[in-house]
């Protein structure tokens, strides 16, 4: 790995001293194989002498075997990845490459450029300080160039180099380059990219990469390497107000209580006033503790441990902020959302959202509009599918500290997780809190759930019956309601009969309508619980995800899931409504148990085996469970 400096051989100590002060630049490359992206990256690695001889020998062999450059080295092969895609000749994920020069270390996020890989490009862009967008000089600014530029702008990368590649194939024409530059600047201006540098080059021939091209005397700007070494990235983060999300509260002994986290904005000094957001309490920084000794000050980009002068409440997920310029706190936001999962966005469903070190329950609205990444046009839509981008409203189950993404990426960037699979299904950028966020927040006090419940004289909750058609849900739910009513409980039973005819009369029995049916039942149950009622629901509700969503809408101790368990053959043999027979004849598509699955609860509060108990015994088991959980307290005379 021969770095070019003679200093290595002559005076290694001086070399090391100099190299300890290198800075770091993370950048993203966007383009497709056809644009020469892999060739460009391979060339950067090669010219910064990051390729060992054993790798180079392998490259020579590979170039002859599968290369596209005849007897010449095919630099694209230096950056190939997993075996499968090497054979297919495509890149399917974000790969990270490393090289360094005399002044900088570089981390390259290498992402494929096809439309279906928006997910990967957004991932690569999220950690980049700058972007290199490839344009083929023969074709100029294409749809994909617009797409790449939009995503770069969306993710808040301010510095863009446009690598106008393959100038050798257009006779090194200045006219061609000038025309492309003009086209590009038009596109960039429309999406708010202002710091743009266009560089004519040939990655294949190594022209204007590190060495200047002899064929383009008309170009006096930087080579790509000049650009990468010179671009200013000591971002505005340090200039902004102090922010530190608390990752970890350190309590090695009773005398020490430190708050550990990364500084993601500004500077902190001993003696500074800081505010805990969202709590709002303030204190003073007593010490900045590190293994190398206490510091007087620390800046954005460092990970430290702070101690405070006062004993105040502060835990993982809270954000320590400059006291006079604190982050805002809110629980409802407008946000850009990039969908990253095969399973589409389900508006209203319960997800988790993670911002900084805080994970909270959340639901997303359907998109206000979707954005076509090729035309930048807004389009209506009811959901977001894989690789789609939209503007959605986000409702969290509690307030969090945040800054708009454009002010601070770490304070405004979030991921969305599926509650059941724990997969990362989306990422997004917080733009602004919704005004109603504050309203809801401050108005939600006077007559609240507690007040409603106090008037009823018992606690509100949901008893959610689930099971196959014909399992006996409604029979048991009826009996339970009668017994609760007799005890003076204010109940309401939601079932297919009273919901399907009114509230949900617009819904059919297709898959998405069935999801919507259950979503509305969950929401109505939540409103009724808020009103202080005990709600019994009797729906097949075959999917775990739907039931988890309904459960998440109320407090953890306000949801009792009762699994009315009957084997399919038993339920089918009862077939009180003749539905199974119809389904077997193919007249009822997507019928649960026949051609649509039933996902049994993994941890229901109660499972009733209907082959072993009568409906009366089952109802008694439910009421007994409610009693054991303290949900009937105050309604029955205690033991004499």
């Amino acid at each position, binding site marked *: 790995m021969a770095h070019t400096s003679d200093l290595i051989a002559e005076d290694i100590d001086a070399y090391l001293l100099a190299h300890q002060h290198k800075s*770091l630049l993370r950048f993203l490359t966007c383009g497709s194989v056809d644009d020469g992206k892999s060739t460009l990256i391979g060339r950067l690695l090669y010219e910064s002498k990051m390729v060992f001889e054993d790798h180079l020998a392998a490259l020579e062999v590979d170039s002859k075997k599968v290369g596209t450059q005849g007897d010449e080295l095919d630099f694209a092969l230096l950056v190939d990845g997993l075996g499968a895609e090497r054979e297919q000749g495509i890149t399917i994920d974000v790969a990270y490459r490393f090289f360094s020069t005399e002044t900088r270390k570089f981390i390259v996020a290498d992402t494929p450029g096809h439309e279906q890989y928006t997910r990967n490009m957004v991932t690569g862009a999220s*950690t980049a300080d700058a972007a290199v967008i490839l344009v083929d000089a023969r074709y100029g600014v294409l749809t994909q160039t617009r797409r790449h530029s939009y995503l770069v702008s969306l993710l808040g990368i301010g510095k863009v180099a446009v690598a106008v590649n393959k100038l050798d194939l257009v006779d090194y024409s200045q006219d061609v380059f000038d025309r492309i530059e003009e086209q590009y600047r038009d596109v960039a201006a429309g999406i708010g990219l202002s710091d743009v540098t266009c560089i004519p080059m040939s990655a294949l021939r190594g022209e204007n990469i590190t060495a200047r091209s002899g064929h383009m005397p008309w170009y006096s700007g930087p080579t790509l390497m000049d650009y990468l070494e010179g671009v200013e990235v000591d971002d505005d983060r340090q200039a902004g107000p102090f922010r530190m999300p608390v*990752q970890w509260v350190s309590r090695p002994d009773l005398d020490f209580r430190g708050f550990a986290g990364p500084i993601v904005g500004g500077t902190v000094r001993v003696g500074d006033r800081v505010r805990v957001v969202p709590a709002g309490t303030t204190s003073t920084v007593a010490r900045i503790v590190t293994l190398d000794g206490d510091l007087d000050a620390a800046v954005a980009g460092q990970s430290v441990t702070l101690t405070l002068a006062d004993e105040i409440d502060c835990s993982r997920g809270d954000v320590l902020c400059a006291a006079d310029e604190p982050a805002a706190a809110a629980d409802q936001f407008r946000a850009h959302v990039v969908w990253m999962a095969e399973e589409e966005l389900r508006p209203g469903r319960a997800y988790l959202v993670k911002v900084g070190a805080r994970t909270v329950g959340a639901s997303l609205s359907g998109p206000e509009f979707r954005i076509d990444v090729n035309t930048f046009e807004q389009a209506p839509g009811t959901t977001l599918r894989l690789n789609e981008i939209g503007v959605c409203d986000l409702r969290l189950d509690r307030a969090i500290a945040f800054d708009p993404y454009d002010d601070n990426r770490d304070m405004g960037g979030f991921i969305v997780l599926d509650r059941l699979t724990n997969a990362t299904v989306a990422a997004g950028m917080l733009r602004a809190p919704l005004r109603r966020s504050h309203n809801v927040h401050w108005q939600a006090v006077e007559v609240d759930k507690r007040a409603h419940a106090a008037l009823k004289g018992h606690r509100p909750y949901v008893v959610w019956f689930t099971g196959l058609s014909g399992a006996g849900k409604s029979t048991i739910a009826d009996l339970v309601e009668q017994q609760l009513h007799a005890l003076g409980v204010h109940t309401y039973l939601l079932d297919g009969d009273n919901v399907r005819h009114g509230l949900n009369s617009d819904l059919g029995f297709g898959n998405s309508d069935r999801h919507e049916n259950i979503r509305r039942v969950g929401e109505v149950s939540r409103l009724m619980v808020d009103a202080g009622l005990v709600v019994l629901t009797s729906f097949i509700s075959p999917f775990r995800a739907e039931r988890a969503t309904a459960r998440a809408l109320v407090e953890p101790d306000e949801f009792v899931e009762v699994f009315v368990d009957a084997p399919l053959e038993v339920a089918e043999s009862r077939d009180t409504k003749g539905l199974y027979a119809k389904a077997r004849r193919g007249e009822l598509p997507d019928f649960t148990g026949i051609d649509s699955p039933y996902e049994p609860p993994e941890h229901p509060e109660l499972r009733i085996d209907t082959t072993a108990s009568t409906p009366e015994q089952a109802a008694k088991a439910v009421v007994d469970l409610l009693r054991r959980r303290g949900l009937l307290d105050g309604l029955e005379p205690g033991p004499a």
Partner: protein
Amino acid sequence: MTTLTHLQRLEADSIRIFREAVAESEHPVMLYSVGKDSAVMLHLARKAFFPAKPPFPLLHVDTTWKFREMYKFRDRHVADLGLELLVHRNPEAERLGINPFDHGSSAHTDIWKTEGLKQALDLHGFDAAFGGARRDEEKSRAKERVFSIRSREHRWDPKLQRPELWSVYNVRRNPGESMRVFPLSNWTELDVWQYIHLESIPIVPLYFADKRPVVERDGVLIMVDDERMPLRPDERPELRSVRFRTLGCYPLTGAVESLADTLPAIIQEMLLATTSERQGRAIDHDSSGSMEKKKQEGYF
């Protein structure tokens, strides 16, 4: 405006990864291989939790075939720092006497290390394991996540891997799933050496050149570290000044001839070197894409 150096930024990111993983795990553990990457990882772990000690034990998946100096260094260093060390040796491998000479490097590594690691993780119920792998080591690692999810069977399934945006890591797992966490993902070999130099991190003396008994076998210099090594008829161990760029089982680790006995001299040699560090490892030579295969099987 303070410009942080590349090492300061790498350090801060690694510390953040340690804290995030520990905050959201029940039973974290650090895989400790006694090599230079482990040394850097341990140093970063100490920084992440200071003034507390790292809140997890170290786990050495041993093969009984490491260099003697590695065992000596391991026990002394861990004792100096007052940390808990767990050593796991696959009992099945011990019973069968698995070794690289009779069973080949591939079976040796598979049974002692890959199987041994799974056994140890299951035995203790660890749900997060820090490893020292770097993305620059090998092509198949360029796309590895910082937080890599493994199935109940410890397999690496591409479909389980999640996009990683910003530094907002998704650390949640389903019951039975575990995580491998790689705090050194974005470090290069040069970064590691520069950091060891800058921070004066103790490393095994085998990294420094010294006169050691070696034989040249199939073009590779192998150190005769103990009497278990069967010599071929024409082999006579001779003392040569050698050092090691990576450390593993001594019969599988090639030495390089060198006079570099200080860190600056090692870094100088590395910068002027023309072969990659993995070239000295027998494990990569089996076939192209062998690391990729090993990763899927649960090896680091």
